[in-house]
């Protein structure tokens, strides 16, 4: 459930928060990336993408998938760099999966950072639309 008041600016452009629960090789991950790209292409603001549950595997640096999958690993890093999108990995979910530890705070792929659920809540409250993938 994600119901919220809408707050459409007069110019018709909206702010989006996305949550990705799917791992990089699941279909919903493609759906999320396709949607994120389209949000930017349509001129809306993609404020933040929050990676939660198995979605935190997106931030795993050094993954070496078979060829057809390669693009799925690095694409968020490139996307964040091109469009200034904040990529946030849930600290608890990442720690639980060994993707990140507080002691070695250098293991994440480029463009990702670690934060808690409070940041997700803040995003939901300050953006117009919130979609969950996976």
């Amino acid at each position: 459930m994600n119901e919220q008041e809408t707050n459409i600016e007069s110019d018709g452009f909206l702010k989006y928060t996305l949550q990705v629960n799917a791992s990089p090789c699941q279909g919903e991950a493609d759906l999320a990336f396709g949607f994120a790209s389209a949000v930017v292409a349509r001129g809306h603001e993609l404020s933040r993408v929050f990676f939660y549950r198995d979605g935190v595997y997106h931030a795993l640096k050094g993954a070496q998938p078979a060829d057809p999958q390669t693009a799925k690993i690095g694409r968020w890093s490139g996307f964040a760099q091109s469009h200034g999108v904040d990529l946030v990995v849930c600290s608890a979910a990442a720690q639980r999966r060994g993707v990140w530890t507080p002691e070695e705070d250098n293991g994440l792929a480029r463009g990702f950072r670690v934060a808690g659920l409070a940041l997700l809540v803040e995003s939901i409250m300050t953006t117009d639309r919130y979609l969950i993938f996976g």
Partner: protein
Amino acid sequence: MGVLHVLGQPPSSREAWRHCRQRMVARDALLLVADAVYAIDQGALLEPFQVKGVSLYALLPDMLARGVRPDEPSRRVGWVDFEEFVDLTVKYQRVLMW
């Protein structure tokens, strides 16, 4: 406008389909994505939604990826690409992902 329901579960996920159907009212829209697009070849699954008067859409890239052809008798389903998916989330004030 009402709620945009985004359904990605295959037709075999009866519970998800049933819950989604129960939540929908006439001013809502249903967008089929991922494995849910297989339902387009099974018209009987979409009939209850049409009876309710909801608008039906399907994500074209997901259809093409699964060999569900848009030129088959389509039973009033609108094909959308990703940017039109975004347009739907603007038009409908709330989005529910199933």
